[in-house]
């Protein structure tokens, strides 16, 4: 099941709004491409998290490998809130590695969410990203409308990743 004949994977590639749960189900069914998409979606968050907890860059990459390996092993769980589920896997891994009180550190959670947001931003057009980061560049109503639309798209992307509730 490594080609786009898998409807879940084909949908995921065509649509970045595919939910994490769908990706995990496809991963549990044996799709490596769905797992690749899942890794691509969350490796920024995992690395951001590890960059705060671990000093050695090589160890950060190793931490990411362990977290995603665990996620792959437990993909059959397919929870509804995958982002929180993966974050808990990260906390468990950190606890086993001896990082003190990882689950109570708010800055770690903020970093995790920041990683998810950064990955979601990569699905926007470059001009939209720039306008979101520097709204003072909007000079007319068209730019202002782009900002509003880009924020709406970003919200939908984050909702698919469980960071925000779906609108409505």
């Amino acid at each position, binding site marked *: 099941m490594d080609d786009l004949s898998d409807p879940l994977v084909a949908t995921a590639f065509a649509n970045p709004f595919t939910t994490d749960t769908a990706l995990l189900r496809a991963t549990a069914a044996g799709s490596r491409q769905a797992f690749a998409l899942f890794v691509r979606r969350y490796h920024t968050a995992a690395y951001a998290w590890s960059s705060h907890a671990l000093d050695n860059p090589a160890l950060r990459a190793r931490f990411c490998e362990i977290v995603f390996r665990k996620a792959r092993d437990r993909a059959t769980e397919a929870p509804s809130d995958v982002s929180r589920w993966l974050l808990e896997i990260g906390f468990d891994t950190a606890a086993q590695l*001896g990082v003190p009180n990882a689950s109570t550190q708010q800055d770690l959670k903020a970093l995790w969410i920041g990683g998810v947001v950064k990955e979601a931003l990569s699905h926007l057009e470059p001009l939209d990203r720039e306008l979101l980061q520097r*709204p003072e560049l909007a000079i007319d109503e068209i730019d202002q*409308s782009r900002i509003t639309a880009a924020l709406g798209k970003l919200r939908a992307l984050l909702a698919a990743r469980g960071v925000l509730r779906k609108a409505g």
Partner: protein
Amino acid sequence: MGWDPPQHGHPTHKLGIYALGGLSPADEQTTRRHLENCSLCRAQISDLEGVAELLSAAELVPDIPPGLAARILTTHPPQKGPESAPLSRTDSLPSDGEQKNMGEKTAREKTSKEKVWRDHKEEILPRSISFPENRKPDAQQSPDSPLPEADPSREHLPRTETHRLNTKHPDTKHQPSSLGPTMSSAASPRENTHTPPEPIPGTWSPFPLAHSGRDPAEETARSPDTTDPRNPPFSGDTQLSSSGLSPDQVRELLNQMPVKKTLGRLATIRRSIGIAVFALATSTLFLTIFVLQSRSPDHALSLSTNTDEISGILHVRTNASGSLLHLEAKDFPEGIYTVEIMPEKTPSEKNVFPENSAISAGSFQVVKGKKTIVDLHTAAKHGEFRILSLHSNIPIATAEIPE
């Protein structure tokens, strides 16, 4: 991404930049005043503000090292086992204190590895070097030197002989001689020189000119006249003459010696190999054509549209896996066609695919002077198909029947 024009009475286009705090003070005050009175815009701005707050979190994220995702994906998948199994010792990461010492530890391990390799090299390399010039004098060798003791039986031998023994070069001296005392005695003067092996008469030798150990020019100058019976060209003549044959008979026999026979055999083998290769290539070609034809049947179908009888040929081929149909339309009038293809199900497939579940539908346009090929996916993996329907947008008046 399109943009919504400002709705009448609602500053929708400004809500995003308002959430980001990028409006001018005057615009911001106007928008805030509108939001106080408009529940629709208030609901929208609360959603956007939630996203805008998260944007600042993304700025804290450091740059990801390139290739991280690929590294994660190329990691070998874990073996099946208990999901809650604790990390093994190899999986665990060192604590903070251990991390600080990691640089020193790595350097120590590197030094240790280099020492092991150096010891290993010192132990192994001398064993593999057995040439005399690389041997140390016995006085310089340590008592526990791993070097083997020099073989006293070889010490008296000249260097060439030692080399010959080390390299186990074939020598006629060490082979059982079947040529009699004449040939053995002919080899004895060159016993202690490193020369190519003495060729057996009548057989191919890799050293055709150097086997006598003389200079080729000298060899040529000293080559005997082949017509002179008193000076036979081949040392084996003496042995053969002693068996009662005259030199002429010997020469005649020599002409029939295995050289020519061997060459003839080689030519025959070469011809046989050529014929075999040609036969193999031809059979492979025919086999390939046969397989392709059997897997890719062409169906020349005369089809009808919903408007008029139109004769055309629709070639249907399948790809190698049988999952894709290539339709090539020929002799169709210009127009847009829709087609439905139904695989002829085998009895086993009839149980798998319900009725009409494997129909592949598609459309194609026929343009004059262009080849029309359309690909359709199919769920059935075999080569027999039938056309369920073919429709065209061609009106009756303009439909032409090609010749």
